[in-house]
């Protein structure tokens, strides 16, 4: 079970790394933020798996804090002025 859960965590990490391509390609800021959102969910899943494998129950609290604060990023994003990500320097 340990090997399977750790393997699953490694698989999720690979997923995350592949998703980075979307941050690179964009094209819009919304695409990049969606990808970041996906990585947040992936991180929560990885933390739960690591908490189970390494028997660190404190990591469940870390996952809790992450989901609790996940919306802060999107709220900060939608406050950006129109199409600002395309005319930056």
């Amino acid at each position: 079970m340990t090997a399977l859960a750790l393997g699953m965590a490694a698989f999720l990490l690979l997923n995350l790394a592949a998703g980075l391509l979307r941050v690179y390609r964009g094209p819009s800021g919304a695409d990049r933020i969606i990808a970041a959102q996906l990585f947040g969910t992936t991180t929560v899943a990885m933390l739960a798996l690591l908490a189970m494998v390494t028997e660190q129950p404190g990591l469940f609290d870390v996952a809790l804090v992450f989901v609790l604060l996940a919306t802060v990023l999107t709220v900060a994003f939608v406050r950006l002025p129109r199409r600002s990500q395309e005319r930056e320097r």
Partner: protein
Amino acid sequence: MGELVGWVFDGLLALSLVLLAARVVASARLFESIVLFIVFGLLMAIAWARLAAPHLALAEAAIGAGITGALLLSTFREIVTDQPPSAEAPKVLVYRLRVLMALLAGGVFAVLGWALLSIEVPAGPAAGEQARALVARTGVDDAVTAVLLDFRAYDTLLEMGVLLLAVLGARAAVAAQPPASGDDLWIGGEGDTPMVGALVGLLSPLIIIVAGYLLWVGAYGPGGAFQAGAVLAALGVLLRLTGRLVPLPRAGAFQRGVLVMGLAVFSLAGLLTMATGRAFLQYPEGLAYPMILVIEVALTLSIALPLVLLFSGSAGIAAGRSQHSP
């Protein structure tokens, strides 16, 4: 089998962290760099989890998810300009020098790290016993909390000073010119939807409960004043972002009080211990736990408020008007 998979995981984590760091630096768009830095923070939390440092994972979660990202995006919002990017390639010699400097720095760092790792560990049951006995004397079960508030309380005391200085410095920078108007873009603006009111109403009490839980659980395991303060600060950031908190040009007496409270309570406790003939912040036997508890509550508030003020970029904050009444 499990060990091998663990190595695969750590290797992937190592590659991802280095790749992300490189892209944060190399990316042509600032917005992309900011998003990648936020993702870097997520993976740092995973790294702390792998290194058996749940305290740090918790702090990273609260600060990375709740504060850093919002801070960077809000700065981005203000400084975006219409000028095209300057695509001026550096001279070859300059470029090589930069790479050389970076490699040198990394090399020295790695050598120092290697030397650090080869320091003999005070292993054996005796050392462990001794440490456990010391921690038990403080009245808290958690070693990191004990270190922060007892053995190395000076660090924490000075950290409160640094936070206060950062707020004062930012205030000095802001005082020259008040924050740009249009800060209330959210309220009645295009971003406002009924969902926002519902979300804030639902999340706020939950975040406060979780902050209290983290403060309480700090005595036994991962948690404590730092994490609780950071989570509370993230709530402040959320409220500020959604227009539920508005900036004030001056802080009231209450907010000033909260700003210095951590420093004051900590110093007072230190003076009291000295008055009873002990060293500075050497708590008397039996009283250590209640004293640490009082200090922790003060610290939580005195960590949360400066972070919110720094995010807001104003001297004070006040409850704002909301279009959607609760």
